[in-house]
């Protein structure tokens, strides 16, 4: 029932706009969207399509209602981003263990996943050193260029 592409779009929407919470219900049309009053991720490319004047992104806000943004204080870690479009695989094979998971230490040459495009499975390297703090994409899920795959706490 849940459309994976729609979900992906929602996630992208959240990531790009640095939303902290998104709550959609239906029948009664409920929408709740939250974003931090305090901006910690100036690297986020944000600016949704059609944005008018450059949105002063990381600008105001220091004093912003913290109550409204429960996750606002959460530190945003650097991500390993997808260098290509394709399907993400966390494991080297169907019944294998994932390349990395939360807590794994990675170095620049650590393979973190496979991305399949045009029937070819491409090994993706971490290209950074640190510890995996979060896995952002599920195995088998499509990813686009530049999409964050893992959050890494640099070592």
């Amino acid at each position, binding site marked *: 029932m849940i459309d994976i*592409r729609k979900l992906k*779009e929602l996630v992208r929407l959240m990531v790009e706009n640095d939303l902290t919470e998104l709550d959609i219900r239906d029948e009664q049309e409920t929408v709740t969207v939250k974003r931090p009053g305090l901006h910690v991720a100036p690297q986020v*490319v944000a*600016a*949704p*399509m*059609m*944005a*008018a*004047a*450059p949105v002063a992104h990381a600008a105001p806000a220091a004093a912003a209602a913290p109550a409204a943004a429960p996750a606002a204080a959460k530190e945003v870690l650097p991500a390993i981003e997808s260098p*290509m*479009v*394709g*399907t993400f695989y966390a494991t080297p094979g169907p019944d294998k263990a994932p390349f990395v998971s939360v807590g794994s230490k990675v170095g620049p040459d650590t393979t973190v996943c496979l991305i399949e*495009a*045009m029937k070819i499975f491409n090994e993706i390297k971490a290209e950074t050193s640190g510890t995996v703090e979060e896995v952002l994409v599920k195995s088998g899920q*499509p*990813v*686009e*260029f*530049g*999409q964050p795959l893992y959050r890494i706490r640099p070592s």
Partner: protein
Amino acid sequence: MFKRILIANRGEIALRVIRAAKALGIETVCVYSQADKDGPWLEHADQAVCIGPGPSPQSYLRIDRIIAAAEVSHADAIHPGYGFLSENAHFAEVCRDSGFEFIGPSPEAMALLGDKVSCKKMARKVGTPVFPGTEDAIEDIDEAVKVAAEIGYPVIVKATAGGGGRGMRVARDEAQLRAGIESARQEATAAFGNGAVYIEKFLENARHFEVQTIGDKHGNAVHLFERDCSSQRRHQKLIEEAPSPGVDPEKRKKVCESAAALIASAKYSGAATVEFLMDAKQNFYMLEVNTRVQVEHPVTEMITGIDIVREQIMVASGKPLSVKQADIKVNGHAIECRINAEDPDRGFMPQAGLIETFVPPGGLGVRLDSHARAGYRIPPNYDSMIGKLIVHGPTRDIAIARMKVALDEFKIGPVKTTIPLHRKLMDNPDFNKATFDIHYVERLLKAEEAAKAAKAAAAPAMAKAGA
């Protein structure tokens, strides 16, 4: 019919395809580069997939990434738009091999008509009038005289290694030809160290005349009449119109039909444009075939009522053409002005940056195909066209009058655009009377430059005289 089309392009043509697909109830997926992440057209697509950074070779020209995007988005067809990969037969082939319908011709038909040599050969066979020049080097003067007699004077002698106008001589008779070859050879030898020359038909006051054609997979091919695109600057079309003004109906019919015959003979499916030069006596000489939808297709849509992009999609899906030749009629006159973000006062320097003001024109007979709007930031990575303003009217004069009104209404700022140039051209007597050729815009611009320079030179003198 397709369920989901991936659009391997950007800007106004991406929006054009989205509109046509939506009207057919087909979903759309747009690939985009990071430089286009705020592209307003992406809003109208059902899905958007980032395929790479701004530079085209890393995104819009990356076949592998586009195919991967089609795979992950479960598209069943790919529309290439114009430019980028639209005339790349290898891309068409990869699409097919990967199981995606390429909305355009088969790789074979594209290669056949896209290659000038094989295209010209085919054209001769079906009677499409071709350019009688030869690119083989002329061995001796007597042979040259023979060739020139066949081609008919005037001819132009060109250095094989030439360029920039050097080593070129126009000859209007045999004596001029003999003298011309001599001096061209000398000049070419001096300039390029290579004295080989060849002869081509020389067209004076040529106009650009192109025939819109479309074929399906069932062997049908029709033409949608022609366009005139003589308003050019540096081989870039500025203004296009349909029909071509003042062309003899019989000659026009013949050349248009020969264009349809050409694509039929190539078993061509999809939209194609057969480009010609037309001389002052309305003789036609084929230049090349564009195996894709063209920027200026809207003027043909306005006069025929046929949605060319819709037709492209339909025939790619295997449907027969929706129209028969006998049913295609010309209704009125249409003109398109390409609105480029360029500064006409500064050598047409492209203008990237934020569009703050964008007030489009409207009303009867006015069509705007544009992805731009207030708040859109033009990225520096791509061509400068931000829209196409098209007008339609019962006559050419009324179309021109409506274009003037529309150009006057159209406000874009602070980026500079070609709107003022178009407004000026609409008042140009050569344009108004269609007594133009493919060089008139450049002549006009040069004359303006010269007048400006003269004025600037005179100014200090006058100031002195006044003092």
